[in-house]
């Protein structure tokens, strides 16, 4: 144990002598913390969209000869995007092609007339114009999605307004009331009142075919009044026939900001421990000190244990520093620090053991650092691929690969430690313990195989 202590002290002295490395170890997590903090505390930026509304102010959607109040579609759209008002189509095109805005949305002057024509014998096709810059396929896809969603919302708003108006008229037919027509008010009797009047008239008629016919009409008025009640909710549903009922399956997901913090913390822990341990072990051979050390001064196991300890200690400090930085943006439950420590220590140990296995392969620090980057980064990104995002076979393959490297279980442990509603931390911790042991054995074998004098 004494040798491990002195080697650990030596590695910390070397770390202290490398100002750039030490600064990176402090600056890097703080930078990540600030970036993640801003990202999760400010929410997504609204995309800038040029908006040209050529529809005359006085235009209204007409239902049954009645003008509907304005649906304020423009106001609704501009809640979701940052509307940049333009005065002509040419100006809109110029703004899109210059990259000033992501897209342009043009409501043509005849839009309302075309909507109104839908209820006539010569229906037109209401259209809006969208101008997008297709030079970047990712951006084009994003804009398409946004505009499609916005138009779906606009359609829904109009459909709701029409459905509400339809329900109002239906109500008038059933219950009666006043209907304003051409500046005057017309009283509508309604089916219910009609049925009452007819019912009252019925005894006054002598039995015979006339009274029997009146009874049939009375019955119709009653039934129509009762059954048309059902039509009201139907018209309402017409505006939004399908509603989403979301049921969480396969475990509840953590709040987005907690997941973002867990990803940032695990990413930092992984990079710091894997790179530091791999580099530090390679340095022993690059400095030619390795044969001197294992010639009776310290065993290979003790040397590996010292490197893992170094990785865990530095990883712990750096990750806690990052979490403290994030506390500025998102309140964290410091009462759960015991679980945080368990996740960081075991995650750090497994990642450090993986770093030791990588560091044992080559003797040049630069080669090992590159190797550590090339292994850690892709696996970290693969670990973030959600199920269903890619084909079943490929996802199964990713699941296997990510289960063999400590990043994903470390992320699961970190998420469970940060989120009180998350599933138990026990399984990922056991997974990490198994990986730490397996990579420790691999590192030992690699050292014996590749680090011969």
């Amino acid at each position: 144990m004494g040798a491990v202590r002195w080697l650990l002290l030596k590695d910390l002295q070397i770390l202290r002598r490398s100002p750039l490395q030490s600064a990176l170890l402090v600056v890097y997590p703080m930078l990540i913390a600030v970036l993640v903090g801003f990202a999760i505390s400010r929410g997504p930026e609204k995309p800038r969209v040029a908006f040209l509304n050529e529809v005359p102010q006085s235009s209204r959607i007409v239902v049954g000869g009645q003008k509907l109040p304005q649906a304020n579609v423009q106001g609704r759209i501009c809640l979701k995007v940052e509307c940049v008002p333009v005065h002509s189509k040419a100006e809109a095109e110029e703004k899109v092609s210059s990259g000033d805005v992501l897209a342009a949305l043009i409501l043509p002057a005849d839009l309302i007339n075309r909507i109104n024509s839908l209820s006539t014998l010569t229906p037109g096709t209401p259209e809006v114009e969208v101008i997008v810059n297709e030079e970047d396929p990712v951006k084009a896809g994003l804009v398409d999605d946004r505009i499609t969603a916005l138009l779906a919302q606009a359609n829904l708003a109009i459909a709701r307004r029409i459905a509400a108006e339809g329900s109002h008229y239906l109500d008038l037919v059933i219950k009666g009331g006043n209907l304003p027509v051409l500046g005057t008010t017309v009283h509508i009797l309604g089916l219910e009142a009609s049925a009452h009047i007819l019912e009252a008239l019925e005894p006054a008629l002598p039995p015979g075919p006339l009274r029997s016919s009146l009874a049939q009409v009375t019955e119709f008025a009653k039934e129509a009044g009762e059954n048309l009640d059902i039509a009201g909710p139907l018209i309402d549903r017409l505006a939004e026939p399908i509603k989403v009922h979301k049921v969480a399956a396969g475990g509840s997901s953590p709040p987005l900001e907690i997941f973002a913090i867990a990803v940032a913390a695990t990413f930092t822990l992984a990079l710091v421990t894997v790179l530091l341990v791999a580099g530090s072990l390679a340095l022993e051979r690059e400095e030619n000190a390795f044969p001197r050390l294992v010639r009776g001064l310290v065993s290979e196991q003790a040397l590996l244990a010292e490197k893992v300890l170094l990785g865990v200690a530095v990883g712990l400090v750096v990750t806690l520093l990052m979490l403290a930085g994030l506390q500025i943006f998102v309140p964290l439950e410091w009462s759960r620090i015991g679980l945080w420590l368990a996740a960081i220590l075991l995650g750090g140990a497994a990642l450090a053991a993986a770093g030791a296995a990588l560091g044992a392969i080559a003797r040049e620090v630069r080669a090992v650092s590159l190797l550590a980057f090339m292994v850690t980064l892709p696996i970290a990104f693969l670990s973030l691929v959600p199920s269903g995002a890619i084909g079943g076979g490929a996802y199964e393959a990713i699941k296997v690969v990510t289960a063999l490297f400590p990043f994903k279980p470390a992320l699961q442990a970190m998420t469970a430690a940060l989120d009180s509603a998350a599933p138990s931390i026990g399984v990922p911790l056991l997974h990490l313990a198994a990986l730490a042991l397996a990579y420790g054995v691999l590192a030992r074998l690699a050292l014996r195989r590749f680090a011969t004098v």
Partner: protein
Amino acid sequence: MQAQGLVKRYGNREALKRVGFGAAAGELVAIIGPNGAGKTTLLSILAGIVAPDEGEVEIGGGAVGWVPQQAGLYRRLTVEENLLLFARLERHPDPHASCEEMLELTGLDERRGEIVARLSGGNQQRINIAIGLLARPAVLLLDEPSVGLDPRQRARLWEFVSGLAGGGTTVIFSTHDIQEAERYGGRLLVLADGEALFDGSPEELREVVRREAPEAADRDFEIAFVAYLQHRGH
């Protein structure tokens, strides 16, 4: 120290072929030979870093200090930090005292606080040797200790090593420099293709050359040595 019948194979190649020799306390033994002769392999076996396939090594008593050809130390630590670290790893009862002793022995006391990477190759080699001496070895093994040193640094190094031998330490070193081996080696062990061709003093080697390659007997020692190897088929 006694080595007997040492054999080392790397695949089908025999790097050492039944090599045996002995060295007494205070003796300075130079192992010489062309590249690939097996010098480093022999020293690594004597140091206990590589296990022989056959044969054995006996150390009369005390530790074996090993000084690798490439300095095995930490270049980002200071001279003092390096010595202190290895003294601690050697479990010295008073590491600071051992460190002071080595600083005095190497003459680097005034440069104790300097980062090793900033020192000259000669001074780095002195620390390399000092670390090898921390084990207080009865036998010190040096693998090509003067490579990369200028003549002044080399002279200082040999003065230092000779002083150690004078103090009773058995010193065994390998070198490519035949003149250096003749000048400082009390005994020479000539290796070629893993085989021990000669074991004796420089004067005795001259005698052998005179008998086996008389045309080179009166030339300088390096030419005489090359002629001897050629005569032996190497």
